[in-house]
């Protein structure tokens, strides 16, 4: 049995310690907002936060999360999720939407660490998240807007 904290809740899951966190949160905890893209740390679709850092859950064994806090898109703190959600809706970012969970989880870390990101900052933060629909320009716009919304809320 492995003890986990996900989105502030305690769980006990009966899995092998090397099962990827992505499998555990999707298949065991039924938190299916996080997506499987490549399974090899290449695309960013599976990004979750582990103690605040944007890890790739497809290549992270669940043993990595013991004693730490996992946050998935379902549990992202409102100070970050609210401006991001509003901006994403306003700019109408998603095409198919498959990559967007990872995009938003990566963007949340950027906003947390940088209140007013430049285009370069956005590239530095987001270049590891692939969108096969090519929504990159809208993502960039939405991040600028989300940063503005976040700044005006504080």
């Amino acid at each position, binding site marked *: 049995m492995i003890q986990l904290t996900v989105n502030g809740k305690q769980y006990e899951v009966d899995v092998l310690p090397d099962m990827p966190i992505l499998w555990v949160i999707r298949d065991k905890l039924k938190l299916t907002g996080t997506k499987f893209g490549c399974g*090899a740390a290449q695309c960013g679709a599976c990004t979750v936060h582990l103690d605040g850092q944007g890890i790739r859950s497809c290549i992270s064994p669940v043993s990595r999360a013991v004693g730490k806090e996992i946050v998935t898109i379902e549990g992202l703190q409102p100070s970050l999720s609210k401006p991001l959600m509003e901006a994403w809706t306003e700019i109408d970012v998603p095409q198919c939407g498959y990559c967007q969970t990872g995009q938003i*989880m990566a963007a949340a870390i950027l906003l947390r660490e940088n209140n007013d990101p430049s285009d370069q900052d956005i590239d530095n933060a987001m270049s590891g998240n692939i969108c096969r629909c090519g929504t990159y320009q809208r993502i960039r716009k939405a991040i600028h807007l989300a940063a503005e919304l976040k700044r005006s809320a504080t």
Partner: protein
Amino acid sequence: MKNFHFTLFHHTWKVIVCIVLAIASVNLMLPARPTNTNRSSAIAPPATIMPKNNPAADDNEKKREQESKAAFAEAYTVFMHPRCMNCHPSGDVPLQGDDSHQHTQGVKRGPDGKGLYALKCSNCHQSVDLEGEHLPPGHPNWHLPTAARPMIFQGKSPRQLAMSFKDSTFTGFRSIDQLVEHVEHDKLVIHSFTYGTRPPLTHEDFVAKVKEWIDKGAALPDK
């Protein structure tokens, strides 16, 4: 009178012989002098001190210099191997693979060498190597050199790299001995010899070459 003259002459002759012998013996006791009096020092040094232009000493010094350069040439093959050079890139993007291409995901060094935002090194490079093709190798302290001291290897000739190692603003080390300490004991350096295509020398041999380069004068390669 005749007798007197003869006696005087007889004694004078003896005195002259004595003087000549005395001068000759003093000359024999003095060390040999150089024939060329234009030399900077006309007095030869005592035999126990090697002269500066002693050919044997020159040969020995040249030999050490050559050996120092040769040792660096071997160590250079490791410094420039992808396992080492990939984390010492000329830009802010680390390199990947045996062809040293720019790291996918466009990850950047960041001020502390540990990446930026959601692209921090340790997000994917965990405490151990992941098993399987093309999965991230790992170490608890995965990082690049910092932005303030990027320690660039990529693109440097042996001479340029050796000059860099002797420059404390490049290495951040107080003395060149700390370079040995780094290559011998830094855990991330040691880890580079344990995964993927290995560098051309073992870690032990590599350290020995770096030490030899320094011990024999840290000579700068010709090119």
